[in-house]
């Protein structure tokens, strides 16, 4: 299946892109993260949360949406 992953703030600096589409077979967020850590080893040391279809989700959530986002600490206001 195809999934869009969005990167923001300091995470997008590390991935050198703001968005990419990937084909995946993983069932949970943490499974998917393993692949992302292979591609971007420095990601392991970063503080971020994950949103699926614009809602924050935990690492053991099932991947069911179309859009994941890796969100570093918020700095609004």
């Amino acid at each position: 299946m195809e999934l869009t992953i969005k990167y923001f703030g300091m995470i997008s600096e590390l991935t050198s892109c703001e968005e990419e589409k990937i084909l995946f077979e993983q069932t949970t967020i943490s499974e998917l993260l393993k692949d992302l850590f292979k591609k971007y080893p420095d990601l392991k040391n970063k503080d971020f949360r994950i949103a699926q279809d614009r809602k924050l989700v935990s690492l053991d959530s099932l991947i069911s949406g179309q859009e994941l986002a890796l969100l570093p600490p918020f700095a609004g206001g």
Partner: protein
Amino acid sequence: MERTLKNVFVKGPISSAFIGNSIAKHQSKTTIGAHNIFLGQVRADVINEKTVTAIDYSAYEDMANEKFHEIREDAFKKFNLTCMHIYHSSGRVNVGEICLFVFVSSPRRKEVFKALEYIVERIKVDVPVFGKEIFEDTSHQWKTNT
């Protein structure tokens, strides 16, 4: 009452004229007795001997607008408000310029104090906005809310 999803983001700084104009628009609402306005302004912080000259704001705008909407709905439920407006900058905002404008109005003052603080704290915690603090020498670091 469900309100439609608004786009809270404005490109660049929020001008004082825009704020003045927004206040003027409320003078026809004669049930209002109290307005409370919060403005976030970019500080020239000195970090490791380098001075911030601007913040470049980016956001997960779709999610952020949904979160702003949630905050707005929750505030209308919790407090007796006549109206509420939220604007946040995206892109570059220089030191001394305004990046956040939250405006609440109510018949009574007690409500606006409670509501405004509630809304601003929720924005800081819940909304996916990111800030790149740009120093004089064009180096940068990423801001984190405390």
